[in-house]
């Protein structure tokens, strides 16, 4: 099913854009930098054409998608999480090609500060699109009778946490994001660039909680999983690596 997304609803907060630009929370921000972010948001308002798609899948079907072409790490995180999920759905969303074109044009004009700010704003808006699709799926799951209490829907994407990026091919083969204008290159690169895809996992906070002790965690530069798990509140389930030991 296609999902209704609006640029207004997905508009990122300036503090999140600043965070994406490497500015720590609470750090003093110059007037010049604040103006850059404001201008980037105004440009994003007019350039973004967000569209999204969700398709609920069974655990069995998702297992095939996750298997992909067999290039995953030995223990992809999502492989541990999805069997204990309340429900699953594949998803994709895009802001459309206009945002990337605007970034490219700014670079060509020598406006790198604004180009980078617009790119950061667009990345945050794409993240917000995932969150919006998760909210849509939450309503769907609750409508199907799942308990709303302690129900969290989070997105997990190929290219992260042991799920090889080549998994995009299997995901696209099942979801067909081409219907909302996203295509996939041979290298698993999505076009337009400001697009997101993956699986939405619905479950309790414990469902989403794991120890960051997988082999690939040591080389991870992201670590946003820790903050994401913390935002769900204290949970009892501390993940697969401990279970295996």
């Amino acid at each position, binding site marked *: 099913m296609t999902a209704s997304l609006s640029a207004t609803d997905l508009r990122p907060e300036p503090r999140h854009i600043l965070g994406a630009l490497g500015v720590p929370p609470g750090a003093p921000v110059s007037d010049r930098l604040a103006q850059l972010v404001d201008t980037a948001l105004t440009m994003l308002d007019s350039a973004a054409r967000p569209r999204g798609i969700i398709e609920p899948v069974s655990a069995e079907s998702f297992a095939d998608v996750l298997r992909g072409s067999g290039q995953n790490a030995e223990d992809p995180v999502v492989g541990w999480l999805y069997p204990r999920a309340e429900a699953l759905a594949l998803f994709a969303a895009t802001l459309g090609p206009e945002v990337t074109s605007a970034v490219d044009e700014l670079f060509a004009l020598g406006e790198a500060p604004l180009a980078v*700010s617009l790119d950061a704003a667009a990345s945050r808006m794409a993240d917000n699109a995932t969150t919006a699709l998760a909210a849509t799926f939450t309503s769907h799951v609750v409508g199907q009778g799942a308990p709303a209490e302690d129900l969290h829907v989070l997105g997990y994407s190929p290219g992260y946490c042991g799920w090889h990026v080549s998994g995009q091919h299997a995901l696209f083969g099942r979801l067909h994001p081409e219907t909302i204008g996203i295509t996939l290159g041979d*290298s698993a690169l999505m076009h337009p660039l400001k697009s997101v895809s993956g699986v939405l996992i619905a479950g309790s906070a414990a469902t989403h909680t794991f120890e960051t002790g997988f082999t690939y965690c040591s080389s991870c530069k992201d670590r946003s999983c820790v903050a994401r798990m913390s935002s769900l509140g204290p949970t009892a389930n501390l993940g697969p690596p401990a279970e295996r030991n």
Partner: protein
Amino acid sequence: MTLIDKIATTLQAGDDAAMPALTRAALDEGLTPQEILDRGLIAGMTVVGRRFRDFEVFLPDVLLAARAMKAAVDVLSPHFIGGEMSAAGTVVLGTVRGDLHDIGKNLVGIMLTGVGFKVVDLGTDVPPQAFVDAAVEHEADVVGMSALLTTTAPVMAEVVGIIREQGLSGKVRTIVGGAPMSADLAEQLGADAYAFDAPGAVDRVQELVASK
């Protein structure tokens, strides 16, 4: 505050609108283009780079300073003999075949230009041989490659291999960066250097050029 100090501090503030007039004023005062470049612009950028490493300023501040530097360099360039400044070195940059992400690569190019390098930007989705051909054509010191996907990172090894096959190792050094990269992976791919971010790339490129 002397005029040259004013140029350096205005650059640090990222005030590109004020730079042309200040630069012209410095020329009118009799300062040479090289003095303005070294003691004003590069000195200012060096401070910005240090403050970035110390988390006192952030990426957009660095880019604003780089834009201010360009505004000044545009005024200075015609005053150099032959209309061109001597470069600190030449770097060929590109995002490797199969990948269209170019923000990081663009930042590296801007910052290298800011500290005096000549940058030949090949863009995105660049075939391996094109990196080497450009390096030969422009007599480059360094080839810089960017990738954001694990599927495209191996292309970097192809570039390193061609450089080796053509007997250019040592003459043309290589540096890699991007989300899937690490120092270990860079070593596995045979690259001479790895950088985590754009300011780090500038440091590594300077080291590579100095070590030639």
